[in-house]
Every structure is written in structure tokens, then in C-alpha cells.
């Protein structure tokens, strides 16, 4: 997850624990970053198992805890988990669509010690919001935003940007101001999971990206001291890759609903890696010893041009999942990099995905039915 705020050196320990409590979700967002074959993960961790994950993660030095999903509010034990997180000394973040929240629940979360709520909107109008999310949620989200402020929570408003809403960047910023968000995160779509499947529906034009970026920078100045504006760059349009997860197995530990532990939430798809499960091993062993978490640690795995690149300590060669998805080899340079011999793949995508008329290809909403199709076809 690319998130607001600064990273820090974990001195070899995880700092960020992302608890993907469930893949169940009332929304069907076109850009969802969950695995496309999520339907096969039925065997969710129990409350007791999650408690153990939280305890072990904290003992290793993790400070930031994200309750994510799917929609984490679907889990009936969320308040209990938030209470344990507070007891352990985590700073806990609920990353939610807001659907499933009501006043008794938010009061209980506050009492339990949940620190912060990140609320997603899909757009600034009900029409686009409800279309992209595949569910009628806009009015409820507005109500939830007010409830979050009423309960004196810091609120990060998160809006994922793509071709269908990026031209409303200014209106989205104004909505964030009206709702008194403390932070607004404008996150350009990253093309993983369902977003990759729907890329031709979502990839903006270079001109759209440039306009949005200028507006975001303008509002960063305007809102200074009142609201922080985070702008997550669209990496397809950059010359250098993002320092994904601050490096593989560096500070970020993701636990999926079924207990599999991953260095990032998209890593499931990488072939040849056997991701360990917290039901079979301790987090300590998983983090320090497991082959999967060591696969792309450090620099030994790198190929040219990364291996000798003076910038390799800055971006770690970019994203392993993106390298795999676009070039077929996770050890290649992320092709977003202009130094990658396969950079033309990205340039071609920018050209081609924009000339495909939207009507030519139907959107594939994130739904159980669609996911089961991928499971049956063995696609991941």
C-alpha cells in the first residue's frame, strides 16, 4: 500500500503490519487491488489467530497496524482486535469504504482505542462514485465522513484516480475540504489485481495526468497548515520506478485473510514462491528465515541494468509484481524505468489502452462471480 506519511528504517524488522482481515466487501471497485482469484480464499483466520499475529508483529517492533480488506467492517470481531491493538501499543488505522459503519460501532471503536480512519470515496459525485464501486454508497459515505469527524478521529480521505474521475481532481479536493478531512490522498491507480484486468477502462492520458498533478500541487500550497494533500504518482507515466514497499521484506508485512504472509498485497501472483502461513510458522521465522521473504531482499537477485545501477539503493529496481506482470520475470527491472530494456511495454500500454474505446471492452467488476471465473480458469 502506498500511503500517507513517512517511512522509516526498521533496522531489519517490520514496521508496518497490514492485516487484510477479509476479502469480503460490499463494493465491487473496478480498480480493486485484491487478488483476482480472491474467491478461493475462504478459510479466514479466527479472532484468536489474528490476536496472535498482532502480538507477534508488535513483539518484532511493528508500530503501524492497518486493518484492511476487502472491507474490514465485515468482520464482527473488529472492535475486539482494535482493543488488542491499542493494548499492544500499535498506532491502528482502519482502511474502509465506510459501509458497515454506524454510530454504535464507531463509538465502540473509539472506546477500544482505534487511532485513525481512512475513508475511501470513488469520486466526488454519486453517479461516478456508485458506478466505479458497483454499489450505491455515495450518500452513506458522506454520512460516515461526518460521523468520523464527530467522533474526533483524524480522517484521511482516499480517492483512487483514473481516467473516469481524474478530471475532477479539483472538485475532489474541494469535497475533502468541505468534509474537513485532515489528509486527502489522491492515489493514481496502480495496475494490480482488478485494476490490471480493467486497465483499458482506467488508464488516463498523459495530458489528464499532467493537469491533475498541477492541480494537486497547487492545492498542496493552498491547504498548507490545514490539510495535507498526498499525491501518489501514476508510475506508468514516470521515468523511474517507485521504491515499492521500501524494498522487499524491508519494513512491510502483509497478512492475507487466510493467514498467508506476504511482502506486499499483490505478491500472491508471483510464481515459484511458497508464501508461508501464520498457521504453520511464527511471524519471526516468516520474516527472517522464510525463502519467500528472502527471495528479493537486498541486491543479489538483481539483473542488469539494476545490478550495476547507481540508483538501485533508491528504488530497489521498482516493483517485483509489476516486473512479473509486464515482462514475465519478477527479477527483471520494473519496466516503468526508462533504463529497462522492456520500457516500451509501458509506453505501448499508454498509447494503446487509450485508443481502445471503452465500449470495445466491458468492465470487469470485482465480484465473487467474476473472481470464481478466474479461479476456475486457473488465472491469478
Amino acid at each position, binding site marked *: 500500500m502506498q500511503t500517507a506519511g*513517512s517511512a522509516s528504517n526498521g533496522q531489519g524488522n517490520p514496521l508496518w503490519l497490514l492485516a487484510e482481515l477479509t476479502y469480503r466487501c460490499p463494493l465491487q471497485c473496478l480498480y480493486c487491488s485484491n487478488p483476482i482469484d480472491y474467491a478461493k480464499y475462504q478459510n479466514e483466520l479466527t479472532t484468536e489467530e489474528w490476536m496472535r499475529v498482532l502480538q507477534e508483529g508488535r513483539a518484532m*517492533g511493528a508500530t*503501524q497496524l492497518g486493518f484492511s480488506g476487502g472491507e474490514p467492517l465485515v468482520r464482527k470481531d473488529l472492535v475486539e482486535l482494535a482493543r488488542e491493538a491499542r493494548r499492544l501499543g500499535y498506532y491502528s488505522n482502519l482502511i474502509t469504504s465506510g459501509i458497515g459503519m454506524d454510530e454504535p460501532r464507531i463509538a465502540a471503536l473509539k472506546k477500544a482505542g482505534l487511532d*485513525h480512519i481512512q475513508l475511501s470515496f470513488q469520486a466526488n459525485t454519486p453517479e461516478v462514485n456508485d458506478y466505479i464501486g458497483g454499489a450505491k454508497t455515495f450518500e452513506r459515505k458522506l454520512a460516515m465522513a461526518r460521523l468520523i469527524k464527530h467522533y474526533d478521529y483524524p480522517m484521511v480521505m482516499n480517492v483512487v484516480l483514473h481516467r473516469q474521475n481524474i478530471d475532477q481532481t479539483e472538485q475532489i479536493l474541494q469535497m475533502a475540504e468541505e468534509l474537513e478531512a485532515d489528509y486527502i490522498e489522491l492515489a493514481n491507480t496502480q495496475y494490480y489485481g482488478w485494476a490490471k484486468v480493467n486497465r483499458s477502462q482506467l488508464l488516463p492520458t498523459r495530458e489528464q495526468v499532467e493537469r491533475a498533478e498541477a492541480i494537486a500541487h497547487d492545492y498542496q500550497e493552498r491547504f498548507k497548515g490545514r490539510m495535507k494533500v498526498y499525491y501518489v504518482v501514476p508510475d506508468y507515466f514516470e521515468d523511474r520506478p517507485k521504491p515499492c514497499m521500501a524494498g522487499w521484506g524491508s519494513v512491510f508485512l502483509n497478512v492475507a485473510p487466510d493467514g498467508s504472509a506476504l511482502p506486499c498485497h499483490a505478491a500472491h501472483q508471483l510464481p515459484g514462491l511458497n508464501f508461508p502461513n501464520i498457521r504453520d510458522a511464527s511471524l519471526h521465522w516468516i520474516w527472517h528465515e522464510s525463502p519467500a521473504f528472502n527471495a528479493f531482499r537486498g541486491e543479489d537477485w538483481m539483473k542488469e541494468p539494476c545490478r550495476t545501477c547507481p540508483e538501485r539503493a533508491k528504488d530497489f529496481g521498482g516493483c517485483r509484481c509489476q516486473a512479473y506482470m509486464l515482462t514475465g520475470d519478477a527479477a527483471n527491472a520494473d519496466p516503468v524505468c526508462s533504463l529497462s530494456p522492456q520500457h516500451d511495454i509501458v509506453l505501448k500500454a499508454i498509447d494503446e489502452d487509450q485508443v481502445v474505446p471503452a465500449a470495445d471492452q466491458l468492465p470487469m467488476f470485482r465480484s465473487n462471480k467474476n473472481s470464481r471465473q478466474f479461479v476456475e480458469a486457473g488465472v491469478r
Partner: protein
Amino acid sequence: MAEPEALKADDIISITRHFRMQWEEAQQAHVLLYPEGMVTLNGPAAEILTRCREAKSVTQVVEELQQAFPQDDIAADVREFLEDAYANGWICIERAG
């Protein structure tokens, strides 16, 4: 828009609401935690921010530190750190009067 104004001596400051400062055994350091982020504090930074847990004036913070570390002339360094902390949003102010 103008930059946020510089800190004045009688500004009442405190650690920003919803931020939490705590000792981290694994890092052997104090950290400042906030929505989805963390800063690891070095020794002097932790000494200064510890004194900003409750609202007080810039002058008071400087005086308290000067008393705790009488051998060094630290006023300028403390002010500079507070300016940075304010610019980074770690502390906030209530204008006096």
C-alpha cells in the same frame, strides 16, 4: 498562499492532536506516530517533544530544557527544532492573547 507564520516566543504549542509519542524498545528510540506514518526521534528531539506533551509557550519549553541541560547553550537549537517540527506538522500552536 503564504507559508505558515513562524513561531513566536509566546505561542502556546503542543504535540499535534492525534499524534502519539512513545518509546520503542525494538528501535531503542522514541517515535512519533500519526495516521499511517512514523518518525523515529533522536535523543535531543525526544527531549524537546517530551516537553511539548502538554500545552506551553515556546519560551517555557526553551527554559525547561535550559534548566535540564545547564552546561550547554541550547536555546537557538531548540527554537530551530521547534520551527521544523511546526513546519512538519508534529506540533501545533494556539496564538496567545
